[in-house]
């Protein structure tokens, strides 16, 4: 029996736009996942702390303020420092294509931009989880 995928939906930085993050959180919950929503105004430190404490499989970062090139890499760096190497990190929000390519290189698995169907996000996470090492735990 496969256990539920555990997802942390997080809002890094000062950005207060939470409509997308909440819609995604609700959709993933309805798709059968365990979802923890951090709330707003999270620092990368707070996000990684929550991810480790909650022992999540996935971190979803939502940002619309343009600060993603500072904050997303910081999250990845902190995960690395804590020795967390099996958690999937995805993102969404307002992120130009040129930055998407750079973020993928740094380790963000996928960016779901405006218009992404939540069902696509849910399916992607389920697929990934099936073959991930975390599913065995």
């Amino acid at each position: 029996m496969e256990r539920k995928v555990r997802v942390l939906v997080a809002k890094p930085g000062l950005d207060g736009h939470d409509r997308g993050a909440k819609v995604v959180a609700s959709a993933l919950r309805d798709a059968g996942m365990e979802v923890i929503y951090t709330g707003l105004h999270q620092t990368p430190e707070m996000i990684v702390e929550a991810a480790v404490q909650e022992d999540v499989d996935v971190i979803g970062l939502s940002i619309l303020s343009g600060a993603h090139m500072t904050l997303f890499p910081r999250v990845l760096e902190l995960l690395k420092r804590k020795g967390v190497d099996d958690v999937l990190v995805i993102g969404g929000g307002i992120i130009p294509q040129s930055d998407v390519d750079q973020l993928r290189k740094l380790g963000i698995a996928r960016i779901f931009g405006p218009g992404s169907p939540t069902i696509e996000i849910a399916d992607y996470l389920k697929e990934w989880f099936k073959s991930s090492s975390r599913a065995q735990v």
Partner: protein
Amino acid sequence: MEDMEKIKEAKKKWKEKYEKSSQQRDALFQSISAEPLEMLYAPDDIERMDYSRDLGFPGEYPFTRGIRDNMYRGRLWTMRQFSGFGSAMDSNRRYHFLLERGQTGLSVAFHLPTIMGYDSDHPRAEGEVGRCGVAIDSLEDMEVLFDRIPLDKVSTSMTINAPASILLAFYICVAEKQGVSSEKISGTIQNDILKEYIAQKSWIFPPGPSIRIITDIMAFCSEHVPQWNTISISGYHIREAGSTAAQELAFTLADGFAYVEAGIRAGLDVDRFAPRLSFFFNSHIDFFEEIAKYRAARRIWAREMKEKYGAKRKESLLLRFHTQTAGCSLTAQQPENNIVRTAYEALAAVLGGTQSLHTNSMDETLALPSEKAVQVALRTQQIIAFETGVPDTIDPLAGSYYVEAMTNRIEKRAYEYFEKIERLGGVIKAIERGFFQKEISDAAYRYQREIERKKRIIVGVNEYVVENEKIEIPILMIDPEVERVQVARVRALRTRRDNDLVKRRLESLKNAARGTDNLMPHIVEAARAHATLGEMIDVLKAVFGEYKEIPIF
């Protein structure tokens, strides 16, 4: 008068005949707010309407048809594009660009650190400086922002909430340096903290102290800045967060009533502060629903101000509003389509009688507006104003069976919400219980599900999609150098200024915050001494504390 019974009979027959035989498209036939729409509206849908009681004439109670007797015949709405990015110099350049192209009022977008009360060199500001608005840390930045802009001739709206008192103080000081007294400046600060807790989420302090700051500003402005709108009671953000039109209307007006009550509790005369309350609504893509919303808003506000709050002056009853076309209706896919969406939304706002209008640029789902995109957005307003003929007759849709029925219905929905809010103990209690936030996130989720199930078509997104499309419009990029320069600038300011004076000013601000003195004069003094925004906010945070939200979804 035609026999209403005959019409009802004929309509019934028509319905029976066509409902049986006509084909029907596979669509929801509900407004974007899930309000069911009849195929047809006829006289019987508004049979109980009384022209004099429910509509009246423009500039006369209940103001359904417009707040001024001559509306756009007398003066067009203000064309006021929300704008700001990078450094104060970058934004000043853009403001001149917009004014030269025919904009008639300014509207300032601040970057997130300013909005949240941090200076650009604060650790929390890293990566955020100048990205979604202009970086303003001090009076010096403000002076650059308004360089060569005469503040006695141009009115300015500032989208700022928790730190609104400080930005107002900066503005007053800049005007002063131009030789323009505070009595002569005109503009608006958004300063609507209740909707921050509900939707925009750029709070700093808890509700109690936040309301105190607002009533201090109201009192100060009624004495010293009489042409200033002290609050822009907003529904825009509530709608952007996903609410329905009825929720936008109801929650905004409920917030408005809460401010009126706060002003009265603070001992202010309603007829002194109410004329300077203003509103800010969204204009979403469901055309007629929006027009109905604005008309209902005017009628409800006038009625309640008169009957519930006992306002005697006509000016206290007028719901004056700014409108922004719906950012959340725009798509990242095929961005040129957004020009069309914005045009329809702008038209709805004009047909609804707005006093001021911002039209979104086509690229706003991708970045802040480029010069090319914002020019088109401004031209959209100018074409409505000068080519369509729409502004030349007041409230042209009045009497439409559909529009009047929709106006009545959304008014009814608003009152249903007022009752709910009352039963919860008022706006602040309802906020604490997450009432508004849950309504909004439920509505947003319902809407998303409609789209994903293709019950509602979004052109270019779930239908008429172009695979692998290339973005062929210029995209504004913020140079990371902006942050480096601004950080250095604010640090240099702190070494150049009279730090003893700043210390004394901050100390007296702290004492005022602890006591009951009006905060504004202390903030103005501190601003003049070049205390930074972050420093003043830190003083207030230490006294008032910080708000923490319990997140729900």
